[in-house]
C-alpha cells in the first residue's frame, strides 16, 4: 500500500481546526481562523484533481490501517473518480459557508464554527471511507452537528425541523447498519472493495438493496421520503442550508453508487425501473411544488427534490451517460443550489424575510445582486451554456436509451423548472407595479461578491468545458457499470 496520507490530512484537519477554534475568544478571530483553515484545506485538496490518475478505476490515495482488530474493522480510505469530485465539492463549499455566515451568525459563533468544521470532517470521511463501519461512523457523525445547526441557529420552528431531520435520517441509518452487519455475516469482512466483489444470493441482494435504498432515498431525498427537506431548509441558517443542499443530499446518491449498484447488482437491475419512475415522480412533484411556493427557501428546497430526481434517474438508467450525467448533476446542484441558498440568505439579511412578494422589484435597487442571482437562476433551470445543462442533457439522453415514455413524462418537470425559476427572477428583478419600498437597501459588498465568484466560475466552467470533470470520472463510471453488470 502506498503511504499517501493526503486524504487523512484532509479528513482530520477540520477536526484539528475545531480544536483550535474552541480556544479562541474573539468572534472575529474565530471567523478569520475558520475561514483560513477551511480555505487552506480547500487548497490542499485541489492538487488531488491533477494528481488523480484518470486512467485507473482503482481507489487512489488509499490508506489502510487496522482500527478495531477483534471486529476486523479497518481505517481504510481512498477515492475514485466519482468520490474525488464530491470531496472537492465539499472542500470548496465549506469556506464559502464560512463567508456566508460572516454576519448571518451572531450568537454562539464559536459553537457554530466548531459544528461546521466537524461537519466537514464527517462529510469528507463519508466520501473517502472504504470500510463499511468507517462509512457508518462518519455518516452518523454528521447527524449531530447538522441537527444542532438547525436546532440552535435556525428559524422560528427550528426544534421541529431539527427533530424531523434527526428522526428521518436516523430511521434510514438503522437500516444501513442492519445491512452492513448482515453483509459482514455473509462475507466476513467490512471492507467495501471486498464486499463489492462478493456474489450474494439474489434474495439477499433484494433485502440489502431494500435496506440501502430506504436509507439513501431518505437522504437524497426521493419522493415520498422528502418531507423533512423543506422543513430543514427553511429553518436552517444559510450555511446549514448550503451544506445540506450542496453536500448532504449528495450522500444519498453517492450511497446508491457506492453500495446499491456494485454490492447488489441483480437487485439493482430488478428494481431500477421502479426507481426510475419514482425519480420521474420526484422531478414532477418537486417542479410543481416549487411553482407554488412563496418562501424562496422552500422554493429552492423543492427544486432540490426535482434536481435530485434527475440524479437518481441518471443513476438507475444504468448506462455510462446516465452515471456521468448523474454525477455532474450532483456537482452542479451543489454549486448552483448552494449559490441560490447563499443569495436567499443575503436577501434575508437585507429585508428580513424570504417572502417572494416582499422581495419584488428589489433587483433594480441592487443590480450586482440581481446580476448574480440571474445567472444562478438560469443555471438552476439548466440554461444551455451553464453547468446544469450538461448534466440534465446527459441524464435525459441516458433516459431516452432506457425508455422514451419515461423521459417524455419527465419533460413537464423540465418546463416547470423554467417556470418557477423565471418567476423568481422576474419577481426579484421587476416585481409588479406596486413593489414594496426597498430604498436604502445596500448592494453586495466585497465579501459577498467573493463568496459568489467561485461558484459563478464553476457554473460557467462546467457549462462550457465539462471535459476535465467527465475525464476524471469516466473510468470509474465504466468500472462501476462492469461491476453492476455481473
Amino acid at each position, binding site marked *: 500500500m502506498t503511504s499517501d496520507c493526503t486524504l487523512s490530512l484532509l479528513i482530520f484537519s477540520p477536526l484539528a481546526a475545531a480544536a483550535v477554534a474552541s480556544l479562541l475568544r474573539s468572534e472575529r478571530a474565530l471567523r478569520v481562523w475558520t475561514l483560513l483553515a477551511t480555505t487552506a484545506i480547500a487548497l490542499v485538496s485541489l492538487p488531488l484533481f491533477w494528481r488523480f490518475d484518470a486512467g485507473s478505476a482503482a481507489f487512489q490515495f488509499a490508506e489502510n490501517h487496522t482500527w478495531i482488530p477483534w471486529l476486523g474493522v479497518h481505517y481504510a480510505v481512498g477515492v475514485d473518480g466519482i468520490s474525488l469530485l464530491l470531496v472537492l465539492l465539499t472542500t470548496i463549499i465549506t469556506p464559502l459557508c464560512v463567508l456566508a455566515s460572516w454576519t448571518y451568525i451572531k450568537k454562539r459563533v464559536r459553537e457554530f464554527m466548531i459544528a461546521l468544521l466537524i461537519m466537514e470532517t464527517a462529510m469528507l470521511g463519508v466520501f473517502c471511507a472504504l470500510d463499511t463501519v468507517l462509512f457508518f461512523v462518519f455518516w452518523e457523525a454528521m447527524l449531530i452537528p447538522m441537527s444542532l445547526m438547525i436546532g440552535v441557529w435556525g428559524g422560528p420552528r427550528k426544534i421541529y425541523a431539527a427533530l424531523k431531520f434527526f428522526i428521518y435520517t436516523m430511521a434510514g441509518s438503522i437500516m444501513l447498519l442492519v445491512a452492513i452487519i448482515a453483509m459482514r455475516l455473509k462475507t466476513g469482512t467490512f471492507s467495501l472493495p471486498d464486499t463489492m466483489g462478493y456474489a450474494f444470493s439474489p434474495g439477499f441482494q433484494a433485502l440489502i438493496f431494500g435496506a440501502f435504498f430506504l436509507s439513501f432515498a431518505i437522504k437524497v431525498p426521493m419522493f415520498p421520503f422528502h418531507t423533512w427537506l423543506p422543513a430543514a431548509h427553511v429553518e436552517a441558517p444559510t450555511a446549514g442550508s448550503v451544506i445540506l443542499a450542496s453536500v448532504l443530499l449528495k450522500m444519498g446518491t453517492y450511497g446508491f453508487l457506492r453500495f446499491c449498484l456494485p454490492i447488489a447488482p441483480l437487485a439493482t437491475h430488478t428494481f431500477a425501473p421502479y426507481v426510475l419512475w419514482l425519480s420521474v415522480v420526484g422531478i414532477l412533484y418537486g417542479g410543481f411544488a416549487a411553482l407554488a411556493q412563496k418562501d424562496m427557501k422552500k422554493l429552492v428546497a423543492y427544486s432540490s427534490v426535482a434536481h435530485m430526481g434527475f440524479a437518481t434517474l441518471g443513476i438507475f438508467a444504468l448506462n455510462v451517460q446516465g452515471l456521468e450525467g448523474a454525477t455532474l448533476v450532483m456537482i452542479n446542484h451543489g454549486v448552483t443550489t448552494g449559490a441560490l441558498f447563499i443569495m436567499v440568505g443575503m436577501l434575508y439579511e437585507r429585508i428580513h424575510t424570504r417572502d417572494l412578494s416582499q422581495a419584488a422589484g428589489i433587483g433594480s435597487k441592487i443590480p450586482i445582486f440581481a446580476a448574480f442571482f440571474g445567472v444562478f437562476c*438560469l443555471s438552476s433551470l439548466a*440554461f*444551455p*451554456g451553464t453547468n446544469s445543462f*450538461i448534466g440534465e*442533457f*446527459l441524464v*435525459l*439522453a441516458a433516459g*431516452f*436509451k432506457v425508455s*422514451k415514455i419515461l*423521459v*417524455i413524462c419527465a*419533460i*413537464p418537470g*423540465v*418546463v416547470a*423548472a*423554467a*417556470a418557477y425559476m*423565471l418567476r423568481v427572477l*422576474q419577481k426579484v428583478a*421587476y416585481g*409588479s*407595479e406596486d413593489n414594496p419600498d426597498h430604498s436604502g437597501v445596500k448592494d453586495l459588498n466585497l465579501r459577498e461578491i467573493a463568496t459568489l465568484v467561485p461558484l459563478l466560475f464553476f457554473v460557467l466552467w462546467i457549462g*462550457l*468545458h*465539462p*471535459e476535465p470533470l*467527465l475525464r476524471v470520472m469516466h473510468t470509474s463510471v465504466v468500472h462501476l457499470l462492469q461491476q453492476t453488470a455481473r
Partner: protein
Amino acid sequence: MDAPIHDIRLLIALLAPLVGAGLVMASGKKPNLREGISLLAALTMFGTTASLLPAILAGKTFVFPLFKLLPGLSITLRADAMSMIFAVVASFLWVLAVFYSAGYMRGLDEHAQTRFNACFALALFGAIGCAFSDNLLTLYLFYEIVSVVTYPLVAHHQDAESYSGAQKYMTYLTTTAKGLVLPAMVLIYVLTGTLDFAHNVHTGILPVGVNHWIVIGLYVACILGFAKNGLMPFHNWLPSAMVAPTPVSALLHAVAVVKVGVFCTTRVMLYVFGVDTMTALHLGMPTAYFVSITILAGSVIALSKDNLKARLAYSTVSQLSYIILGVALLNPTGVEGGLMHIAIHAFAKITLFFCAGAIYVATHKKNISEMSGLGRVMPWTFGAFALASLSMIGAPPTGGFISKLYLLVGALDAGSIGILLVLITSTVLNAAYFAPVVYKAFFGKLSDEDAHHLHGEAPLAMVIPLCITAVISVVIGLYPNLLLGLAKAVF
C-alpha cells in the same frame, strides 16, 4: 464542396453586440455616448458580416469552433449562404434601428433607456448567434438567449399591461422550447451521436433505419417548438408582445425575434432532417397545408384589428408562415422563395413598424380609424408605409413580388393547386388589410382637431431610417441578384 475555413470574423461579429451591451451598461446615463456605442457595435457587426459575403457567394463556408462540451456536442459558429441571408439583414437593420430608437425613445422621453439599449444589443447578439450556428445546440443556446434578453424589452413600460404581455411572451416561448425542442434535441443526439448540421440541404443528419414515427415526432416537435416562428397554435405571444415600445416591435418582432424563429425552423428542416428524408416521409405537403392555416387565419384576424400595431402583428404571424411554406415545398424554387422572404419581409415589416412608431410619436395615435387624412400631414411616413405595403402584398416591382413569384412557381413545381390557391387568397387578404390604411391616410378627411394640432412628421432620426428601408423594399425587387445568389447557393 470546399472544406470550411476557420475565420475569426465570425467571433468578432458575434462579440460586437455583446461587448456593445456591456459598454452601454457601463456608459451610465450619458445618452450620446450610449447611442454612439450602440452605433459602433452595430456598424462593426454589419461590417464584419458583410465582409464575409463575397467569399460565401463564391461557395465558401466559414466556421469558428468555440467550446466542445461532449463528443459530437459543441458550440461552434458557421457562416454559409443561409446564415448570411439572415445575418446581413439583421445587422444592417440594427444600424438603422439605432438611429430610429434614439429618435423614438428621446422623442417620448422614455425611462430606462440604458437598459433598453443594452438589451437591444443583446437581442442582436442572440440573433446573429442563431444565424451563425453550426449545430442544433448552438442554435438552441442563442434561441434561448434571445428569449431571456428580450423580456426586459417587452416589459419595458413596467405597467400591468406590459407585465402580463411579457409574461405571456416568456410562457409561450420557454414552454415550447423546453417542452418540445429540448427533448427533440436530446433524442436526436441519442440517435445520431451528434447535433452538427449537415453540409447540404439534402441528406440531413438522421441515420437511415430510424423508426419513421420517431422521425415524424421529432419533426413536429421542432416545427412547433421554435414558437418564435409565430405558427398557430403557439402564436399568441406575438400580439401580446406588442405592448413593447415600437422600435422593439420593429426590430425584434419584424426582424430579430420572429426571424430567429423561422430561421431556426427552416434551418432544422433543411439541415437536420434534410430534403431527402422529408420527401421520403411525405412531410412537405402536410407542413405546407398546416402553415397555410396560419397564413389565412393570421390575415383574417389582421383584417379585424383597428390598432395598427396589432394589425401588423397578425400580418407578421401570417407572413412568417410564407417562409416555412416555401421551404416545405422542398423544391429549389420554393426554398429560394421562402428564404428570400426572410429578408424581404424584414425590410418591409420594419418599415411598417417604423411608420407606426413615427405616427405615434408625431400624433399619439394608435388606431387606424383615427389616421384619416394623416397622409397629407406626414407624407414621407405614409409614402414609405405605402411602398412597404406593396411589398407585403407582393405587387411588382417590389421585393415582395419576387418572393411571392418564387413561391407561386414553387407551388406549381410541387404540383399543388391547393397551395397556389392559398397564396392567391392570402394576397387578396393582404391587400384588403393594408390598402385601407394607405387609402384613408391619403384620401380620408383630416379631422378639424387634427388639422389644428398636427405639425408634420416625426423627428428626422425616425423618418430617414424608415424611408431608407422603404426604398430598399423596392430596390430589392428591382435588383434581387445578391439575395437570389445567396438563396440559390443554399439549395
